[in-house]
């Protein structure tokens, strides 16, 4: 069930059917590349870091309570609003500003793909299947570095789409050397970083294999995710200690219904953000905020 009208939506607050989930994620001090997307679920803070630690190439799921935690409910859960802000890494740091952010439901991952194994098809074990969005519609793939990469490699991915058609991606470029937690893939050229691996069809049901064409170095996980919500950290929060001693900062609040349709959080969802360092490195710059939720009767 959902909500019959705006009054039913608004009344959730007074009826006690609301829960705020706070997060504070701090990427490590290793610089990320300008234009690079970064997986904040791998960063330390609240909640604790996710390392994609499981058997190599075997599909695995993440536990909901280890992501941004929204307690399970009897009714359906919905995003009421999000508030995000990004603290500067230093009092003069500005490289985390103008940062697009995407809230994802992390569905399934295939860890420890060897990005040095050029020419070798690395076949996945799909004993575990999509726990949510099981038909694969709207499900995307992203490749997350699990160890520092050299960069500059290429790869292809064989996957089964939402219509059970087996497809192979175009040759996907890897961006330049990047730290753990960075999203590896680019599109078409090494400089064109994209959050998701390009695909055809209506979504991805499972990954069948990955083949490194040109060695990239490092290890990575392919993660199947469902994008839920976009936000934007515009100006970094900081106050210089020398002239000009002015305070800078911004938080973006987006409310469901007023600003965009409500978005459901499926039972068992593991929630996390990816962000793009448009202005430079995201290293050591905390991403903080709240995902406020309602649930239906």
């Amino acid at each position, binding site marked *: 069930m959902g909500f019959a009208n*705006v009054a039913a*939506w*608004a*009344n*959730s*607050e*007074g*009826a*006690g*059917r*609301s*829960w*705020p989930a*706070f997060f*504070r994620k*701090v990427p490590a001090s290793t610089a990320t590349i300008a234009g690079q997307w970064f997986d904040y679920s791998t960063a*330390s*803070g*609240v909640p*604790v870091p996710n390392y994609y630690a499981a058997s190599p190439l075997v599909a695995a799921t993440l536990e909901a*309570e280890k992501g941004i*935690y929204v*307690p*399970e*409910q*009897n*009714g359906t859960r919905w995003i009421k609003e999000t*508030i995000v*802000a990004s*603290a500067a890494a230093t009092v003069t740091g500005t490289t985390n500003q103008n940062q697009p952010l995407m809230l994802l439901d992390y569905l399934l991952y295939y860890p420890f793909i060897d990005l040095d194994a050029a020419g070798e098809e690395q076949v996945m074990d799909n004993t575990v299947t999509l726990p949510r969005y099981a038909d694969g519609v709207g499900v995307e793939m992203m490749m997350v570095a699990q160890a520092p990469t050299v960069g500059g490699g290429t790869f292809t991915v064989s996957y089964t789409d939402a219509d059970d058609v087996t497809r192979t991606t175009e040759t996907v470029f890897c961006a330049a050397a990047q730290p753990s937690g960075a999203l590896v893939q680019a599109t078409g050229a090494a400089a064109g970083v994209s959050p998701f691996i390009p695909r055809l069809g209506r979504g991805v049901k499972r990954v069948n294999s990955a083949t490194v064409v040109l060695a990239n170095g490092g290890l990575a996980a392919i993660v199947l995710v469902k994008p839920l919500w976009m936000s934007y950290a515009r100006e970094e*929060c*900081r*106050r210089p*200690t020398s002239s000009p001693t002015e*305070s*800078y*900062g*911004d*938080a973006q*609040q987006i*409310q*469901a*219904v*007023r600003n965009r349709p409500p978005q459901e959080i499926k039972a068992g969802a593991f929630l996390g953000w990816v962000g793009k360092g448009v202005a430079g490195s995201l290293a050591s710059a*905390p991403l*903080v*905020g*709240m995902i406020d939720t309602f649930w239906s009767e």
Partner: protein
Amino acid sequence: MGFSSHDDLINEVTTNGKSQYDIRFKTISTAQVAGFWTNLGVFAGSEPASTYAGTSLTFVPTDDTWADGAWQHGGDVSTDTKHFLYAGANIIAAAGAPWFLLAVDQVGYVPITGADVTGTASRTITMTPIAATSAKVDRYPNGVGLRAFFSTEVAPTAGGPNLTAFNYLDTAGAAKSCPVTVGFAATPVIGAVPHSGAAATRYAPWIPLAAGSTGISDLTSFTLSGGTAYTGSGQLVLHLVKPLWGIPLLASGMHSLADMVNALPSMAKIPDGACVQWMLMNTGATTAAAPLMAESLHAWG
């Protein structure tokens, strides 16, 4: 009651004078820890620093007549109802930004002292369940919307136990439990919410409730076991609160405003007897002697 339209709101405020503007202060006298939540009730300000007096494990109801000091928001207005129209706040500190300030209505608290802090056996709380009467403690009928959290009144010497059981009655009087084990920090500083911070199994600001629970009518028992038991003469407080509104504070000295008329849901209600208190999330380590200022306008009709 409430406001039937924007016209009604404007009439109540401008013709009938049913509004009040307030500015409140707190000074965070003890440095806080990055990633932790803080109960600002322990610090002095426009309301004195609370001592959370009482008998250990016995619930103490609080309202706007609380002896520790409570914001005087205009007294009872029933059958009208009071609502926030806007709020703003800022904080001045060399470190700690950005912050998130929460206003809560504290319905009551449970002092936890001595062996009830250091002990590892189940602790039973003495409390008369919240009902649906006109009494101030019942201002959220049957506890609907109420949430619970622990805070530190006096820091324990060391430790770091787990909250392995947290039991309560829900709004229907059914016995429920927190569905997860919650970790407590080793040495939370004064004011800190011990189950916050950057470590595994910290859930904050609220203790998670069982699926379907819309509130808490009775705090029944808890167990601090596993991990490392607290030592020393620490004092904790278990609060029962209704969240009212929140606002991000972006950088030192930067004032943030929140419009509550055009929000959805709009205009958080201030029930008669509300004991408004403050909580703060510290992204960084907030420096000592940091002053917080919060302003708000509320109206009734």
